[in-house]
């Protein structure tokens, strides 16, 4: 794919955009055309014909609000979709396939950056958008473009269709671990995680892009969730992988306090965020906090103590060789605490984590 069609069009009005999309769609591959509009899809692309027909049928008998979930085929996306489809109509968006999805979940296999994606979402007019489709793997070559351009496009669509609810999954790691940070950070704390890490810098700018919806579309309810380390049996994110290691490396002389959140607790928070009337930024934390060394002791893995400079050197080399996805710039997570205050989530969102840290760790494999 060339870079040009990845870049979203400058034309902002919906008509112009869809017009352009139609034009490009005619020229481009069958697969792309499939996603332009539902009608065209039905005529041209046999692969998604069935899907479109089903959707048309269901529209008649299913008038529950439609929720669009980006990154639906990821570990967390699947969990969220499975939970949401009991209460909402759910449409997943992901460039990866989502083969084992429940029957009533639709899936748009499309790259969020494509104009055709924008057109298809506009056509669907979802009542709510849950944005999980953010790549965290720094080795994924186009992670930077995908995250920023995809999110920018999604936000433009959300504005254009005046979506009722926009939920974005950010992270408490954006506050950044720091020796000097105060004990429990509230949502107003500055996002200082960027430090030396370009990946975190991108994630902060995504968080801020979504924040702009607060003033651009005050009528839409925008929710930004900033959860602590999410771990769970279905996830392959950094913290889950870390605690699954047979030998768990730590930085010698440091033992930070850690907060963990079970994947299903996060899904609960997601459901709460979709309730009407909820808006704002929320820190989401599991029950309690504990020193890293004691969390490791609750796991079968063995703790390794590695002197800081050696750890950095080894990690840099391994990162270059693509053995690890964990850049040494984020090693401060193993040195200093980054604790968040989740009082607002408890009071305003009504979110109370159901699983203790022991249960969360035991449930990991």
């Amino acid at each position, binding site marked *: 794919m060339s870079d040009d069609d990845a870049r979203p069009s400058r034309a902002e009005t919906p008509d112009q955009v869809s017009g352009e999309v139609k034009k490009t769609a005619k020229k481009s591959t069958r697969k792309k055309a499939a996603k332009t509009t539902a009608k065209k899809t039905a005529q041209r692309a046999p692969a998604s014909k069935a899907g479109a027909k089903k959707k048309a049928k269901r529209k008649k008998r299913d008038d529950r609000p439609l929720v669009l979930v980006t990154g639906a085929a990821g570990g967390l996306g699947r969990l969220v979709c499975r939970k949401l489809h009991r209460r909402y109509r759910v449409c997943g968006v992901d460039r990866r396939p989502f083969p084992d999805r429940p029957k009533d979940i639709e899936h748009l296999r499309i790259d969020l950056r494509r104009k055709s994606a924008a057109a298809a979402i506009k056509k669907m007019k979802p009542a709510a958008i849950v944005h999980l489709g953010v790549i965290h793997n720094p080795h994924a070559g186009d992670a930077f473009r995908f995250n920023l351009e995809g999110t920018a496009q999604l936000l433009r669509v959300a504005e254009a269709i005046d979506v009722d609810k926009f939920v974005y999954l950010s992270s408490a790691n954006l506050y950044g671990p720091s*020796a*000097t940070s*105060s*004990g*429990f950070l509230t949502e107003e704390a500055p996002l200082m995680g960027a430090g030396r890490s370009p990946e975190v810098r991108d994630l902060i700018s995504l968080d801020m892009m979504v924040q702009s919806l607060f003033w651009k579309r005050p009528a839409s309810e925008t929710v930004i969730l900033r959860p602590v380390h999410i771990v769970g049996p279905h996830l392959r994110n950094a913290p889950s992988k870390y605690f699954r290691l047979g030998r768990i490396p730590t*930085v*010698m*002389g*440091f*033992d930070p*306090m850690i907060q963990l959140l079970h994947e299903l607790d996060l899904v609960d928070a997601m459901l709460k965020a979709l309730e009407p009337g909820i808006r704002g930024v929320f820190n989401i934390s599991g*029950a*309690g*906090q*504990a*020193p890293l060394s*004691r*969390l490791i002791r*609750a796991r079968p893995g063995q703790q390794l103590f590695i002197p*800081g400079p050696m750890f950095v050197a080894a990690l840099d080399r391994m990162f270059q060789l693509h053995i690890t996805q964990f850049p040494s710039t984020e090693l401060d997570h193993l040195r*200093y*605490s980054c*604790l968040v205050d989740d009082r607002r989530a408890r009071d305003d969102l009504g979110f109370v984590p159901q699983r*203790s*840290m*022991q249960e969360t760790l035991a449930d990991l494999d």
Partner: protein
Amino acid sequence: MQQAIKDRVDPALIDRIDAIPRENIGEFGTDAFGFDPEVVKLIAPVANWFYRRYFRVNARGLEHLPEGRFLLISNHSGQLPFDGFMIGTACLTEAPRPRIVRSMVERWSAELPFVSHFFVRAGQVVGDPATCRRLLENDEAVLVFPEGARGINKLFAKRYQLESFGTGFMRLALETGTPIVPVAVVGAEEQAPAIYDIKPLAKLLGFPAAPIIFPQLVPLPLPVRYHITFGPPMTFEGTGDEDDEVVVEYVKKVRNTIQRMLQAGLEQRQGLF
């Protein structure tokens, strides 16, 4: 090994540590900030040795310590924070109701390997108003040195002269309705007499100060005798949202009380050792 150390500790001391309030201890044995009473059992013998043998502390007024939350406000001196260590030991080993004192430590110490981790387990927290508020809301006893680094690093010529006090502690006390217990430590000023502070070196190393100490050259404390006086609790009515002038006035009252207690302690003292 931990058990082996604990077995050698005076059982009366273990009982006192077991008697400290534990409502805030979580499922992994620590509170939200990482404090663990079991680790205190390992440190207690060392603290006790310093308290009884090395500094031979003479603590008075411990009966004044209230129940529930309170703020200990003390003068700060001696280049190394043994004064905080001894105030904590006094509250743990000699107070009628044993308490763990949470001191607000310098931010830079939190970056040191091993030290930071050890401090945290022993109940020390990085000095920050939000942290302090949370601790007080949890009914903890918090030790604040309002002089901060200026106090502990003052030169020998300025001994027992209080530096200016910050006002943060007073706002927190007013906001959370916390009684203030004034504390005067006499003796610590002579443990490491500093004759000069090499400021450029301190800046280079990132330390708060780089004092030249005479006679022992390294900032290890001399075995001076400590006299720690705890005053009756002072309560101030307010919301914490007062104008600066009002708060400064309250702070002055606390500062004057401590200065008076220091004078009294100095007059009563017979010899440095």
